[in-house]
């Protein structure tokens, strides 16, 4: 089998199925929070704090949901 050289934007990143792909959620959540708060806030001076708060809230609730689902699949 011939391995092709990686061509950015044409070929997918070789992330495979390693658990490291979950780290992609960090930039995803942060960027979504910033964009959402940029639209919602009237005063952009509050943007860093509000976006950080929203990011933390999303991470906490995603973690809580994951933990709950893990418990359900383990003991249900």
């Amino acid at each position: 089998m011939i391995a092709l050289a990686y061509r950015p934007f044409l070929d997918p990143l070789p992330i495979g199925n390693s658990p490291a792909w979950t780290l992609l959620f960090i930039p995803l959540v942060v960027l979504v929070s910033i964009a959402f708060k940029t639209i919602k806030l009237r005063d952009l001076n509050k943007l860093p704090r509000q976006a950080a708060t929203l990011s933390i809230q999303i991470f906490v609730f995603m973690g809580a949901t994951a933990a709950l689902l893990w418990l359900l699949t383990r003991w249900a």
Partner: protein
Amino acid sequence: MTDAAPPPPEIPSPEPLGAGAPPATASRWNFAAAFAGWLLPGLGHMLLGQVPRGLVLAVTIGTLWLSGLLIGGVSVFDRGDHPAWFLGQMLVAPSFVADATRARLVRGHDGTFAPDDDPPFEPAFARAHEQGTLFTSLAGLLNLLAIIDVLYRDRDTA
């Protein structure tokens, strides 16, 4: 004792309708700015004079879209195979360019997509395809919020 009746209490006259409302502003539908925002995220806000807000939107939504393209490659845009996901992706206009580029590369290649046939791009599978599609579709949905916001925003609103 006088029989003169006391004067009736003064009843305040009702205010005319809308007297307490804020003054009307020159709001209107910003169709051109919304179209510009679809072409390039954040451009609509910049056209309305809200350059910082437009720049932040351009950087965040643009980074999200480009990250999806980088993670999954050009094959994450496929309106034929994934029409539902493309509904989200198409809310950023460059997605049409990416889809057309993928289709052109497929048409110009007469072999299979096995590595031996030197394909023009490597199709994405599993996590790379999933994350690339998620990033680009979320960029589109966020841009939809930005387009709706710019469609009915006063020019003087900071």
